[in-house]
């Protein structure tokens, strides 16, 4: 989740409340506040559905409402501007959507620059799917001359990218510039690359990779041109979040005329979205008992525009909110505005009779048998690897029906176990410094042919572990589980056992279990130095 660094002084100034007041309520608005707070700032995580809170300005706006200092919808005036941005046909197959705006009259303190850069990065992550869906460029507009053009350019087109002093072609940027290396894959397979140029053909931006060095934002910058490009209408939400955040810092928003063959439009569009919601529905969902007026008041604290009309509430959702998809999203905000801490917890009245799953009841019996026999329960991982599971167990080749994960995160975890025994041997291997005998079992799940099956494995390690010991245990288990009569014991060919000292348990000609004395070569693979006898039995299948 994005972490926003909030400087207390800055927040006090932006919100108009004391640090203590702010910090005591922030978590109840929906935030994870870092524990290791410094004296002058705190790092706060906001949820991925609220990109409008990814900047101190956005947090301040929300907190002002939540603390009741300024409630209701914020009006952000948009002056009609003279800047035009022409979208050319050549870019439409590559990165078709663009929204832009001009913001003037900014004074960039270091906090403000840090906040803008942070917001940009967090939006790239949170809304932009790492710039694929949405990428934002911010420019010093005084360095270029409108009108601007957004086009698909020849990859050989050259310009000086940000943080470089020499011209590179766009193709070279993808290979040599750090940002090109990070994000170049987004343009894989494109014949033309997105580019924004001014009236003199000077480059503002090569979205979604890098800006031109020409329009770099510095302490002296006062007027910004903002471009947001991408493949999804979420572009406009990102633009709204950026420009309203800058307006909170005192910037004056000016519109840009975006000209396209399918129709021109004025950008940004900060008109709120209108919803009509029912107070009854909110009351039923949350469980409180509010009038439409009270509901509207709760929503105003969350900076919605809200007006009660009978039992309904007309809600104006701010243009910077990217998370309102359904009336319940609005009701959740109403509950936050009301205060989660003011909601009285009440037990549901639903009366039902509970019952344990048959598999778990059976597992409990299996456990009881093994515990009675003096075995300690273990709960090993179900992820393992071919080497331990098959090669060390002398059970190669890997049988079909083994579940392999596509992109393992380590060599240790490449498949789901199809049996439990190797896991017990691994546990013995890490416990060799403890007194023997050691007797352990696991009553866990395995996966074969993508079906979850329940197994029991038990193993005993000590200097006089013998076949007769495990035979007694196997008999006891089968007897107690009521399987004795159905099972036939036949000599096993399983490579894990010493030849002639392993037995298979057969039920209707299918092997459902085995027991015996493990082959010394198996023990050696696991690094064990004492004899081990073991059994494994399948006792259930999840249908």
């Amino acid at each position: 989740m994005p972490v926003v660094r909030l400087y207390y002084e800055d927040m006090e100034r932006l919100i108009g409340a004391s640090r203590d007041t702010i910090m005591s309520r922030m978590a109840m608005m929906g935030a994870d506040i870092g524990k290791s707070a410094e004296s002058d700032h705190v790092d706060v995580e906001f949820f991925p559905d609220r990109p409008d809170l990814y900047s101190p300005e956005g947090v301040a706006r929300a907190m002002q409402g939540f603390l009741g200092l300024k409630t209701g919808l914020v009006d952000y005036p948009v002056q009609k501007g003279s800047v035009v941005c022409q979208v050319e046909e050549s870019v439409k197959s590559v990165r078709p959507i663009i929204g832009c705006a001009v913001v003037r009259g900014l004074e960039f303190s270091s906090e403000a620059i840090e906040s803008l850069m942070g917001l940009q990065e967090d939006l790239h992550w949170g809304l932009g799917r790492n710039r694929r869906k949405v990428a934002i460029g911010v420019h010093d507009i005084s360095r270029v001359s409108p009108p601007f053009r957004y086009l698909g350019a020849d990859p050989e087109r050259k310009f000086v990218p940000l943080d470089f002093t020499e011209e590179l072609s766009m193709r070279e940027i993808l290979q040599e510039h750090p940002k090109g290396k990070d994000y170049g894959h987004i343009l894989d397979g494109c014949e033309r690359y997105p580019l924004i140029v001014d009236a003199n053909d000077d480059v503002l931006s090569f979205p979604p990779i890098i800006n031109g060095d020409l329009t770099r934002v510095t302490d002296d910058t006062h007027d910004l041109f903002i471009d947001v490009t991408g493949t999804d209408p979420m572009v406009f939400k990102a633009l709204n979040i950026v420009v309203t955040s800058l307006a909170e810092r005192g910037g004056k928003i000016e519109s840009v005329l975006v000209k396209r063959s399918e129709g021109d439009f004025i950008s940004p569009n900060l008109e709120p979205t209108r919803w009509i919601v029912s107070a009854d529905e909110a009351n039923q969902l949350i469980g409180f008992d509010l009038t439409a007026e009270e509901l509207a008041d709760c929503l105003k604290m969350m900076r919605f525009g809200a007006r009660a009309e009978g039992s309904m509430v007309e809600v104006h959702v701010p243009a910077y909110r990217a998370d309102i998809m359904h009336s319940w999203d609005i009701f959740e905000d109403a509950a936050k505005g009301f205060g989660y801490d003011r909601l009285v917890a009440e037990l549901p009245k639903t009366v039902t009779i509970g019952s344990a799953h048959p598999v778990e009841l059976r597992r409990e019996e299996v456990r009881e048998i093994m515990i009675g026999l003096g075995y300690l329960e273990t709960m090993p991982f179900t992820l393992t690897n071919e080497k331990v599971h098959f090669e060390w167990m002398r059970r190669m080749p890997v049988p079909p029906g083994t579940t392999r994960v596509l992109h393992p995160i380590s060599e240790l975890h490449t498949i789901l176990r199809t049996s439990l025994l190797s896991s017990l041997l691994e546990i013995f291997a890490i416990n060799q410094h403890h007194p023997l005998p050691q007797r352990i079992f696991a009553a866990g799940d395995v996966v074969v042919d993508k079906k979850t099956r329940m197994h029991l494995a038990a193993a005993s390690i000590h200097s006089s572990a013998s076949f007769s010991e495990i035979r007694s245990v196997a008999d006891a288990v089968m007897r107690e589980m009521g399987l004795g009569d159905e099972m036939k014991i036949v000599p096993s060919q399983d490579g894990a056992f010493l030849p002639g000292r392993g037995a298979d348990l057969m039920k209707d000609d299918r092997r459902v279990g085995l027991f015996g004395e493990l082959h010394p070569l198996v023990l050696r693979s696991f690094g064990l130095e004492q004899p081990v006898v073991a059994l494994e039995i399948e006792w259930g299948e999840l249908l």
Partner: protein
Amino acid sequence: MLSESDARVLKAISDGLYDPRIIAEKLNMKVEAVRASADALAESGLVRVNKSVKEAFSLTAEGQRYGKEGLPERRLLQEIASGKPVSELKDPSSKIGLGWLRKKGWAVIQAGMIKPIGSAAKGKDEEVLESLLAGPKSGASLDSSGLEALKSRGLVSSSKTKEWRYEITPEGRRVASEAGDAKAQSLTVIASGMIKNGDWDGSNLRYDGRLYYARPYDVTLAADRIYPGKKHPYQRLIDRMRGIMLEMGFSEIKGQVVQSSFWNFDALFQPQDHPAREMQDTFYLDSKAEIPDYSRVKEVHEHGGGIGSTGWGGCWSPEVASQEVLRTHTTGVTIKYLAEHPMPPVKVFGIDRVYRREAIDATHTPEFEQLEGVIMDEGVSFRHLLGFLKEFYLKMGFEEVRFRPGYFPYTEPSVEPEVFIDGLGWVELGGAGVFRKEVTAPFGIEQRVLAWGLGVSRVAMLKLGLKDLRLLYQSDIQWLRETPLSIES
């Protein structure tokens, strides 16, 4: 029953002898044999053996010489009588003596003359020297300052020796006196015939014409440490949670480890380009599942499904939905169950293993247990969810619970319950919310569904005091053996 030699040793100790050497001498036995008998008697609680380490001091060769001749400074003092020029001292031992004379303040040097002063009384060091000349002695009988002085001059060395001192116990005294009668035989193992036909009087037995005595043991002695077979401490915690859920009227459900993306993600209204669905977070399999009729799920993703939702827009792909994964949560199992049982009321839960593509370390494992439960019924609300959560945590032993807003893609509203733990403060423990309409509507579920999930291993860390999650799965056997069943969990 005592062996003859044990009986003799017991008698000797009972008579007040305590030193194995003396007992050996007296009984004409080897010292080792006496010690072995005494150890056996001690094990039966008849004698007590006090072992101690004694330090003995003896003179070095130089110390021996001085012991006989006197310390160099004493001899020099006699030699100079009333005064002597320093230049006349030739003997090397005189040089040593001169240093000590001055140090002890027995003489001064004036104008090249050594002159005695004071009375030069016999020092503690000289007393100790004299006393050690007779033979090695323990430190207790010697003056410590004198001893230290001699040690620092290399005149005394020490050696450590073990000493045994025996003492009769009251029981031993009784056995010794009876052994003297030579009538009753001591009895350790009680034979079956003795139980059936013996003539018992307290510990005394008359059997088969003989007298026996079942001697008491020292019941305070430690025995070998053994361990019962046990449930895993983590399983006990899981069972406790299962018990709470069952008590509260929930039925247990289970599902497959391998799930389609459809149930794991799409049915829960997770957009197909959601970051949590990416390869770096989820274990995908190289296989496709059959997915059920998906038209309503597709509709809700693309356009909101006619329930007043905007949907995600874009194009929903059944191909993507059919990709198989190791379940990343048990919620897929839950929604599938609800889809099959859409009529209220439903109260179900499950505790099962889930998989996340995370590198393994002390606080992350690629698989872990999740507790999950839902209540679906007419008229249930978010406030009822809070009520359930509070009750559940209370039953788990967390008395203070508070609720913070949270975010989960498939619930709205969402809440993060926190419990107060001494020393840690407020700790987030799980997540909960009301299933979004976009989740329930496509499956014909008309009532609200209250849902919550909880990372069980996190509770285990708190309850079992674990620092490393891996211990749950790659267990240290000694930890399993030593963790008592009755642990507060």
